[in-house]
Every structure is written in structure tokens, then in C-alpha cells.
């Protein structure tokens, strides 16, 4: 019957004078045109995406690259014995509590002898960051022999001077509209002509903690906080997530309970992250009495947040393993457990890892829930462990973006660059891990 139909239709087409080949050729042009259109559309979508990404990167890098440099001023500091250690005993206690600011003030007065009025002197002293005194103390404590000598020392400039040198403060504005006075500009120009002003790599940005003074503020504390938080998150969420996914996908009976659990996991993935923060505050801090602002609590909260992502991705990865592999393993007498761990898991591993890294990347960029558990506090010290108070990169960015000083603008962008750098490294890691696991057979 159906055979006859086909034969008939073939006859028809032949009697109409056009063979199959002719018909195909006739439609070919339209088909190719459609394909070309689709390709062009896809390409333009990709281009648009790339354009926006590069715009984002350009603006961030344009704003932030200058934060990796720091204006330094060279001063001839005379390590005056009268001021530092009048008794001459070189007692470390006396040395460490000496008036190093006085040394800087002396040096500045010497460099600009013309400055006389109290008001002007005050302005003059503000050229140098007050972190400079710590620098000098370190030098003296390292080598007390320099007391009594005069040395050229490069000291960090104040943030306003830094902005001026980097050109972020417009010299053409009237004095009242500008944060830096005409006299200060004159001093800096004078120093510059002597070659005593320089831009140097800002290593302190990566190593120091937060500070009220922009020129002393760094993301070292936030980086360590993020690392501890993510470690806690990874250590908890990967095994729990993968185990839950394997149980639900491979062992759990299909009934109303597992359906309920599945619905709830999907819902959990859609819960706004700040809700997890409230939960963490109520459960981990108020109920279990864990310390506030600690990466441990942050990690616990982010674990709750990333678990659904990891579980859903892992289940999808397990589902995509062809049933024939399971049959092959079971058919040879493997137990369910052996089937899962010897055959299904290795095949699902790349997908599971991808899900985990996506979850980790989310966690790395998350700030809202961490605000709720106190990781938004102003913390100067670099955390030494997951129980020390600390903050994390996105929260640090949030804090700096909120600060009025011009110098925090570039630091905000620089911190974003560092955060993006971490994300890129994590994604690279995901790709490499995936490749490794795929190469095992």
C-alpha cells in the first residue's frame, strides 16, 4: 500500500517533467540563503556580546589601571638622634614609640624653607601619607645604625597628591573647586623638577588590608577573606552536592517524596541570595553562636546558596550518561554502587566540575548574603584563618564604591579587575580539569 503510494508519487513527479534532482536544485538556493541568514545572525549576536564585554573591560581597566601605581616623593630624612633616642640606649621599645612623623615634618620644612605660617605648614605636612612614619620606623628597627645619618627615602604621597600627579585632578579649575590648593601644586611642581616625584608599582595594594586612607588601602585582606570563604564553600558544597545528586539520580526511588525534594531544590536555586544571608544570621550566628564576619560563616552561607546549582548540574550530568553504559556494567554483575562509581561518575565528572565551578564563581561574586552576616565590617587586619573577621572582594568593592575620596574610584576598578582575574583563573581551571578528566579514556 505505502509502497504503491511512493511509486505513484514518483511517477507523478516524472510526468510533471521535473525529476527529484531538479526539485532539489530548485530548493537549494532558498535553503542556502536561509543558512547564510542564520549564520549572519549568530555571528552578529556573538559580536554584540563581545562588544559589550570589551566595553566593560575597557571602562574598568581605563578607570582602574592607575591604581596599580603609587606616587612616591623623595625626601632627605635625617634620622635625628635627639628626636628618636635621646638616651642613646637603642632600646627597641623607645625606638618603636619615637616620633617618626617629626622626622618627616623636619625634612619637609628643610625642603621648603620659605613656608612659614602655621596654616601653610599644616598643608605642607599633608603632602606625605601618614603611613610614611611606619616606613621610617621599620627602617630604624631593621638597622638602628642609620640613626644620626641622613638618607634619601621614597615615601608614599597623600591620596590627593597621588590623584594630582596621575592627572585625575583638573589643574584648570579655580582653587575653590579643587581639593588641592595652588600652593600645594607649586610645591609638587618644584619637587617634580628636582626629580623627587615618581610613580612606582603599588605593591601595597595587593598586600595590605583596608584603610581609611586610600593610599594605604589594599585588597590583601579581602583576597585572603575570599580565599578562606571559597575554601569552606568548596570543601562543603562539592561533596554534599555530588553525593545528593548521585543519591537522587541513581538510588532514590521515584515517588512523591523525591518529586517534592526535586521541586524544592529547584526552588532553592531561585531564592534571592540575601535570604540565605538572613538564614545564616539566624542559624549560624544567633543559634550556633559562630563568630560574626568570619569566612567560616560566609562559607556556610554560600554553601547553602551554591548547593542547588551543583546538585542540578550534577544531576543533569548523570542523566546524560547513556543508559547503555549502565546496562553494560549491570549486565556483567556490577552492583549499583560499582556501576555508579566505576562508570557513571567518571563520565559525569566533567559536567559536575563545570557545575561546581559555576557555583564557585557565583559564590566568589556574591556580596548580599555576606552583608547580613557582618562581613561588611571595616577590617584592617588580614585574616589568618577562617575564624578571623574579614571581608571578601565583592564586599570590599561595595565598600570602596561607597567612599567619597577620588582615590577610591580607581581602587574600586582595580579591585574589580582583580576579582575578574580570579574568575578567569577559575574558569580556566574548569576547562583544564574537564580536559584532564575527559582524557582518561
Amino acid at each position, binding site marked *: 500500500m505505502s509502497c504503491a503510494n511512493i511509486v505513484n508519487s514518483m511517477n507523478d513527479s516524472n510526468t510533471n517533467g521535473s525529476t527529484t534532482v531538479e526539485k532539489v536544485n530548485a530548493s537549494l538556493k532558498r535553503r542556502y540563503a536561509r543558512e547564510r541568514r542564520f549564520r549572519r545572525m549568530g555571528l552578529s549576536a556573538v559580536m554584540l556580546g563581545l562588544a559589550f564585554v570589551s566595553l566593560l573591560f575597557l571602562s574598568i581597566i581605563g578607570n582602574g589601571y592607575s591604581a596599580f601605581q603609587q606616587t612616591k616623593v623623595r625626601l632627605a630624612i635625617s634620622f635625628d638622634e635627639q628626636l628618636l633616642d635621646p638616651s642613646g640606649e637603642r632600646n627597641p621599645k623607645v625606638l618603636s614609640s619615637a616620633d617618626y612623623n617629626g622626622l618627616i615634618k623636619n625634612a619637609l620644612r628643610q625642603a621648603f624653607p620659605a613656608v612659614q605660617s602655621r596654616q601653610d605648614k599644616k598643608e605642607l605636612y599633608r603632602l606625605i601619607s601618614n603611613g610614611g612614619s611606619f616606613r621610617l620606623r621599620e627602617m630604624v628597627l631593621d638597622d638602628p645604625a642609620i640613626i644620626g645619618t641622613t638618607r634619601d627615602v621614597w615615601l608614599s604621597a597623600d591620596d590627593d597628591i597621588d590623584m594630582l600627579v596621575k592627572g585625575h585632578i583638573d589643574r584648570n579649575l579655580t582653587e575653590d573647586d579643587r581639593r588641592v590648593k595652588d600652593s600645594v601644586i607649586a610645591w609638587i611642581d618644584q619637587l617634580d623638577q628636582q626629580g623627587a616625584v615618581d610613580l612606582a608599582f603599588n605593591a601595597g595594594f595587593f598586600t595590605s588590608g583596608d584603610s581609611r586612607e586610600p593610599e594605604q588601602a589594599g585588597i590583601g585582606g579581602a583576597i585572603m577573606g575570599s580565599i578562606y570563604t571559597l575554601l569552606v564553600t568548596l570543601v562543603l558544597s562539592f561533596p554534599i552536592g555530588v553525593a545528593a545528586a548521585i543519591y537522587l539520580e541513581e538510588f532514590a526511588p*521515584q515517588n512523591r517524596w523525591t518529586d517534592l525534594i526535586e521541586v524544592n531544590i529547584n526552588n532553592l536555586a531561585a531564592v534571592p541570595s540575601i535570604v540565605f544571608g538572613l538564614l545564616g544570621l539566624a542559624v549560624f550566628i544567633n543559634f550556633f553562636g559562630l563568630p560574626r564576619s568570619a569566612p567560616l560563616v560566609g562559607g556556610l552561607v554560600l554553601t547553602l546558596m551554591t548547593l542547588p546549582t551543583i546538585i542540578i548540574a550534577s544531576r543533569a550530568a548523570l542523566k546524560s550518561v*547513556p*543508559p*547503555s*553504559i*549502565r*546496562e*553494560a*556494567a*549491570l*549486565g*556483567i*554483575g*556490577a*552492583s549499583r554502587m*560499582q556501576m555508579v562509581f*566505576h*562508570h557513571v561518575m567518571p*563520565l559525569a565528572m566533567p559536567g559536575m566540575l563545570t557545575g561546581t565551578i559555576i557555583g564557585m564563581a557565583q559564590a566568589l561574586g556574591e556580596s548580599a548574603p555576606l552583608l547580613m552576616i557582618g562581613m561588611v565590617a571595616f577590617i584592617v587586619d588580614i585574616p589568618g584563618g577562617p575564624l578571623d573577621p574579614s571581608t571578601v572582594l565583592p564586599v570590599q568593592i561595595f565598600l570602596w564604591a561607597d567612599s567619597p575620596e577620588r582615590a577610591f574610584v580607581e581602587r574600586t576598578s582595580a579591585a574589580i579587575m582583580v576579582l575578574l582575574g580570579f574568575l578567569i583563573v577559575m574558569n580556566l581551571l574548569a576547562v583544564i580539569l574537564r580536559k584532564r578528566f575527559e582524557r582518561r*579514556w
Partner: protein
Amino acid sequence: MLTEITTLNQREAGAMGHSAILRDGANKVKPGAGEFAGTVGKITLADPRMSARNVDVFYGDKHAIQNVSLDIGKNEVISMIGPSGCGKSTFLRCFNRMNDTIDSCRVTGEITLDGQDIYDKSKDVVPLRAQVGMVFQKPNPFPKSIYDNIAYGPRIHGLAEGRDEMDEIVESSLRRAGLWKEVKDRLDQPGTGLSGGQQQRLCIARAIAVSPEVILMDEPCSALDPIATAIIEELIDELRENFTIAIVTHSMQQAARVSQRTAYFHLGRLIEVGNTDDIFTHPRHKLTEDYITGRFG
């Protein structure tokens, strides 16, 4: 209800075995109202290795196997033939409970191995499947090396002491499946990188590596050339000396060459079973005759 029908079937089958009226070509069982009343031929054996009684299989609502009873004897090769989609694979998979892995699949009736019900609640499927091995219709090598494909079964069952013994098992399994010469230099390469026919032989080698006592083969030669087929058929002959084999095949020549008994399935029913020679020379059921003479479909 079910048991009633079955007792009837068995009585009928037994009666037909002795009936002179139905033995010859002139008096075929005619299709019609009573077409599926029962199986023609002797389903029972005096001393069966495995036996199925009143087996029904459902995929959801689909009734894929309808009230089939059949014995598989010791040291015999039984072949199962029938048109595509008639339920041969489904029935074969009942014997090592592979249908358990399909969620929608439900099996009723009784299947025994050496007199023990394999669908009993207390029966463990792991030793059952080690005892009743299977070669699947679609080759499904593990995405691991050729060596590991073969070694996996012996390894999990603890069949080899040390590396040497394992090497030996791997080599002999591959040799018997006629694959050794082709792969002996690339044992560490993935089994999935082999050709279709090579994969099929790899799966046969993998199944025999654990020395199962009953082997279920679902079209093991569907992708093989005549030479490779001959090797597998030799293997089946050799295995029969100690083991029991059920083989599904679409090649009637193959069924005739390797099997002692043949069962013909049609639309989920077991139509006729008997000695292979008899089935192919004197089919007693009209459907069997149509099928083997190529008049089917």
C-alpha cells in the same frame, strides 16, 4: 485467570506433541480465532537449567510479552527468532533481570534458575548476573581501554589473582571472540574506538570473561562478516559443552547452524518451539511457516 489459561496451554502443548494430526504440512494450525491460544510444541524439558512460566512483560501499558512459558536446557543452545519488535530482546532480558533497569518495565510470572525463583525478593541480582551473562543487541563497550573492558568483570568479582592471571583471562577471552589478533597491540586504547563489528566481539569477550554458566546473546553477529561470524559460532559450540546459551538471531541459517532448539515469537507471543531441525523442515504453525519461508510481512 492466567493460571487457568496456562494449564490449558500446557495441556494443549503436551497433547500436540503426540498428536499425529498436526504433525504434517497439510494440517497447519490455521491463523484465525484460535491463533494465539497457545504455543505449539513442547515447552517443557525434563531437566531444565532455566525455565520461564506464564511470563508477562509490560512497558507501561504496552503488553510486550504475553504469557510465555519456555524451558532452557543444560548444555543446549536455544535460538529465538521472529520478526522485529516481537519481543525477543524483552524476553531474553527477563532471564537476568535486565528489565529491572527500565523504570516503566514490569515483569510478572515465574522464572527459575536451577529451580530457584530469580525474581524472589531475597534473590540478589549481582551473583545472578555474574551467573547469567548477557551480550546486548547494541554493542556497548565501556569508554575505557580494551583491556579494562575485558578485565572489569573478573576484577569486580575477584576472579583473577594478580596481574598475570588477569592478562591471561583478557587474552583468552579476546582470542575466543576472534578479536585478539586485531587488538593485541592496542589493548590500552579505548574500546569505543573500535569498529562496530569489533565492538560487538569486544562485548562478547567481556561477557565470557567472567565465565557465566548461562549466556544470553542478543544478535551477537548482526554486524559481523562471515569469517568473524564463523568464529563466534565456533565459540558458541565450544561453550555449549559446559554452559547454556540462548541466542536471538535474525539469520535463520545461523539458528539452524548453532542451535538445538528454536523458538518462534510473534507479536509478544511464543508461537512455536521445537527441535531446530523440525522447526525449519516441518513448521507446524502457519505463522512459523510464513516466517521461515520468507512469506512474512
